[in-house]
């Protein structure tokens, strides 16, 4: 059964097989990643390696666990292998007749996925840590080994983690790994050492033997010849004549016939064709293929690459949630846990039934949170969140409450207000936050979305809130 003639397929590449929904992702597919979450299994049609590489990394790097934990396989017309891509996929088949063989592994992954405790966190780092832990855990891997990968900016990729970063920010994986280790979720041991560009931290370096004076690699090499008889020493060109290949000493005019008896070659000399410098030892420089900076070897950034093992605490976090996340939320002064926000909304609806006033729940979502976090860095992230909360807090009444749904989304109540004022508050607030972020993070264009829920008394509070946040999960 070839892929093309497979009668299981409809035009869209989706099909059901043995109780599971599959989707074959072709290069010309029009589906969005969000739409792909509907399927239980994704098959990437990997006829083009670039497409396969890009797609698997994109899917595994997606923020939604429904996607990054999903069983994803390559459907390849030929057998070519890439260790990293194979590791972050769940396997490869060469035609759909091999689907049967996949079913046990699909079911095992789906079963294990269902055991993973998914909760939202305000911390970008926590989100990534949980992603890495849960991905490897659901694939039966307790060890998280770095895998050499040519297209990686740091030369190695960590399954479940590296895909979340773009090429230029890939070195941030080390911060995440260090943080996870400091939290006791993983333990490390030595794997290798590698070097990165001192200017841009990139690992794609090529080593060049260059002139120590002008760094040109354009040079010629000549042997130095020592004539024993008279002690003359000079480059071999001193001894050559224009008539034949014989060597004659320029000092005593004797013929040099026998190496080791008449003469030897104690060293060699290089002449730079660019600056005419004469030297014996090339300087080795490492040119960065990313920023083109010519690094001196001794100033390269040396980095120890570690392999990691998920600890018992790490496993516990995967299965029962990461305690530190709740703690982190509680530590943000001026906010409440989302569960509490739910309850308060319920009480507000009850209150509305008696006082006949209008209340609202507003939602603000920063679409490019990851970009922002990358720009401000981990150390300033919490400060920025505090500033945002402070700004929101100053714009709403003291009895209104704020809660984080996730790192990029937070909700707040606007109670006992008319709709026009509530809308104006949200609009002004989004402008204010935009200004705040632009002021603090130059060259960053914040993309805020806001949404607005008019609370009603006849519908269950949970349904109302779910309707509000469903598009921002």
């Amino acid at each position, binding site marked *: 059964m070839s892929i093309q003639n497979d009668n299981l397929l409809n035009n869209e590449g989706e099909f059901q097989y043995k109780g599971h929904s599959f989707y074959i992702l072709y290069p010309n597919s029009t589906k969005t990643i969000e739409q792909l979450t509907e399927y239980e299994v994704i098959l990437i049609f990997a006829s083009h390696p670039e497409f396969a590489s890009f797609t698997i990394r994109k899917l595994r790097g997606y923020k939604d666990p429904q996607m990054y934990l999903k069983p994803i396989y390559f459907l390849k017309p030929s057998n070519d292998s890439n260790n990293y891509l194979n590791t972050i996929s769940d396997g490869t088949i060469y035609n759909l007749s091999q689907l049967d063989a996949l079913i046990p592994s699909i079911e095992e992954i789906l079963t294990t996925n269902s055991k993973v405790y998914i909760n939202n966190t305000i911390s970008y780092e926590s989100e990534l840590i949980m992603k890495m832990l849960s991905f490897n855990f659901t694939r039966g891997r307790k060890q998280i080994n770095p895998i050499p990968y040519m297209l990686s900016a740091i030369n190695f990729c960590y399954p479940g983690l590296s895909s979340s970063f773009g090429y230029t920010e890939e070195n941030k994986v080390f911060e995440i790994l260090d943080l996870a280790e400091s939290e006791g979720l993983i333990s490390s041991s030595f794997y290798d050492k590698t070097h990165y560009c001192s200017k841009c931290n990139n690992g794609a370096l090529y080593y060049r033997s260059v002139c120590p004076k002008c760094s040109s690699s354009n040079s010629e090499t000549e042997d130095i010849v*020592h004539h024993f008889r008279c*002690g003359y020493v000079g*480059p071999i060109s001193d001894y050559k004549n224009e008539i034949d290949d014989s060597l004659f000493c320029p*000092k005593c005019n004797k013929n040099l016939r026998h190496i080791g008896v008449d003469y*030897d070659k104690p*060293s060699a000399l290089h002449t730079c064709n660019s600056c005419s410098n004469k030297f*014996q030892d090339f300087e080795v420089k490492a040119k960065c293929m990313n920023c083109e900076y010519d690094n001196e070897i001794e100033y390269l950034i040396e980095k120890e690459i570690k392999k990691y093992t998920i600890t018992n605490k790490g496993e516990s976090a995967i299965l029962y949630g990461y305690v530190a996340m709740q703690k982190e939320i509680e530590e943000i002064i001026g906010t409440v846990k989302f569960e509490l926000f739910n309850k308060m909304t319920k009480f507000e609806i009850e209150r509305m039934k008696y006082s006949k006033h209008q209340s609202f729940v507003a939602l603000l979502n920063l679409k490019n949170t990851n970009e922002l976090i990358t720009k401000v860095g981990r150390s300033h992230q919490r400060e920025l969140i505090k500033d945002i909360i402070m700004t929101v807090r100053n714009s709403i009444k003291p009895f209104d409450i704020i809660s984080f749904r996730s790192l990029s989304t937070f909700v707040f109540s606007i109670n006992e207000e008319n709709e026009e004022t509530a809308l104006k508050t949200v609009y002004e607030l989004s402008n204010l936050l935009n200004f705040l972020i632009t002021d603090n993070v130059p060259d960053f264009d914040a993309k805020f979305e806001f949404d607005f829920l008019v609370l009603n008394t006849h519908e269950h509070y949970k349904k109302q809130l779910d309707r509000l946040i469903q598009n921002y999960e």
Partner: protein
Amino acid sequence: MFEFIEEFIAFIRSLTVEHFVRLFWFFIFFEMIRYIILEFVILLTNTITNKLKAKDFTEAERLFRFDNPFLSIIVPGKNEGENLFKLINSLKEQTYTNFEIIVVDDGSDDETPTIGRKLEKLGLIKHFIRNEIRGGKASAANLALRFAKGKYVIHLDADCSFDNDAIEKIIIPFYLDDRIGAVGGNVAVRNYKESLVTTMQAIEYYDTISISRIVSSKLGIYRVISGAFGAFKKEALDSIKGWDIGPGLDGDLTVKIRKLGYKIEFAAEAMCLTNAPNTLKKLTKQRLRWDKSLVRFRMRKHKNIFYPNKSFNFSNFISLFENITYGFVLNIKWVFYVVDMWFNNASQIEFIFVTNVILYTVANYFKFIVFSLFRTRKNAPISYFLIYIPAVVFYFGYYLRSVRIFAHFQEIFFKTSYNDPWNPKKTSRFAKDNNM
């Protein structure tokens, strides 16, 4: 003891002038006339003429400053890494700075390559050239010469340090006379306090280098530019294609330059300090090597200086003649003197010995104190050495002389300099076959 003293006084009293001359002819005719009277006269003359020629020196200095010549300082050596940094520091302090430093590592088996490369990378030396296979000091110096770009080439030993004006002081004499092809620097012992052996050598260097070279230079017979500190016209070195195989290559090179018709000068004020061998064993080894070179180079390789052919040069003839006379013939003559005394004055031999010691000691005190007046640059107080002067007679008269006789004997009959591990066998073999 008292009896001996009484007899000794009686011996002295009994001496007539004729008898005194008969018993101490060696001291009177060879040592006193050459090394005290002649040297004193020359030093005095030199001082006067220097004063009279002060304008010439000023003009030479002006020409030097105007010309601002580029110099190549070459430092060949093996396992000299630990000395390089101190040497470079000493050169960094120089008042004259228009020079390049070329270090050639002759197959070192220590950290020299690492240190040299580091210095090169830091820009403290222009070239660090390493020969993986040792070729001998001459080959290392020649390789450095091949890359030298300077108008003048200064050859240094890596274990030396220099007065901060030493480089300009050694170059200025070239501007006194265009015929000057090489200038020797003054060398003194840095570690003179380390042992009695080094103290003796410090006194020796004051005499044989600081003083004797002023004299020989004045007489036009200066013949050995020390490898520790010597400056050469690049064109002169190029003409003779650099150094020939050693040991003794410094003196050999000087004679070769003389043969080209160049004059050789000594720059007493261009001061270099070096570490002298600190044990008798090391010193003996060094001196055997040095002393053999008189036979090998003066009497064997450059014997044609004595030939009355068209390239005959009188000052070269005198230079070598004096060297062979005082370095070789009189050494033998001294043996004759001892034999003469032993057989003809056996009953008075102990008095003759003591008298000789007294004569030499008095002469040495006189020389050391009076000649110090002619030394413009001293690296140690004269008073430090006064207590050691009585030992000088034994050092010069017996130890050095014995070593010299032994070295000459070995070289004349066995050509042992060609077996000296100081030079690799592969090159010494050729030198021996070709009487080089």
